[in-house]
């Protein structure tokens, strides 16, 4: 990504359910101010929310980097946490490792990663058990 890029970094704290959603709400507002079309914002907001919630639910800490060029919106999400043992399984709709407590609050539907993939034009996930997970999410403009 080169000239004309908007870039902003956001920190996400694992376990901080009170502030969960704050980063994705902020990203949505930034994209609205930049003048991105509403249907694109909706897709990015869903992906950003799910990525943010995954950090809050599973990781110790994480970072979301938003980049906007004339061609794409890109989110680079990285966390320090337990990582994902079986990515193929984690990508299946309905599969979740969420606790009973989280499920009772309406989390852990096993839709997070599938929702991100569905709303992205390009999606990559890498994970190392015991270290953390990184996501690359792009939506074409």
């Amino acid at each position, binding site marked *: 990504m080169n000239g004309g890029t908007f870039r902003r970094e956001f920190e996400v704290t694992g376990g901080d359910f009170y502030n*969960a959603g704050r980063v994705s709400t902020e990203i949505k507002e930034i994209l609205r101010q930049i003048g991105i079309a509403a249907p694109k914002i909706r897709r990015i907001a869903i992906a950003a929310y799910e990525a943010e919630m995954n950090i809050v639910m599973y990781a110790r800490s994480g970072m979301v980097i938003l980049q906007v060029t004339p061609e794409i919106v890109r989110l680079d999400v990285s966390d320090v946490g337990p990582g994902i043992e079986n990515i193929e399984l984690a990508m299946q709709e309905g599969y979740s490792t969420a606790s009973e407590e989280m499920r009772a609050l309406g989390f852990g539907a096993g839709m997070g990663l599938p929702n991100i993939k569905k709303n992205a034009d390009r999606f990559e996930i890498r994970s190392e058990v015991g270290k953390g997970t990184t996501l690359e999410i792009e939506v074409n403009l």
Partner: protein
Amino acid sequence: MKLSEILQQLDAAVCTHPERADTEVTGGYCGDLLSDVIANAQAGQVWVTIQVHSNIVAVAALKDLAAVILANGRKPQEDTLRKAQEQNVTLLTSPMTSFELAGKIYTMIAHLDLGSGCR
């Protein structure tokens, strides 16, 4: 249909942002799984749920929902109220079940569609 018209016909109390009652409602969505609502609710809809914790506010704000209706007489938690105030989200409570609320709201909106010559 305006939120205020729907409110009149439901036994609902407004917890936050009564001034937003003239918001236009385009439909509704029922769900207690946040990822399901994030994926499938549409802007302008009312969301009927039994979840009362503060994360419902982020979902409603992100999706530009017209209002959140807490069913079964459930009351929002303190921090849910605070967040809804901050983020301009209209929260309602109703003693009706999700099923009853969905049925009533659906009928109101479907009736409106028929009346306006959509068929």
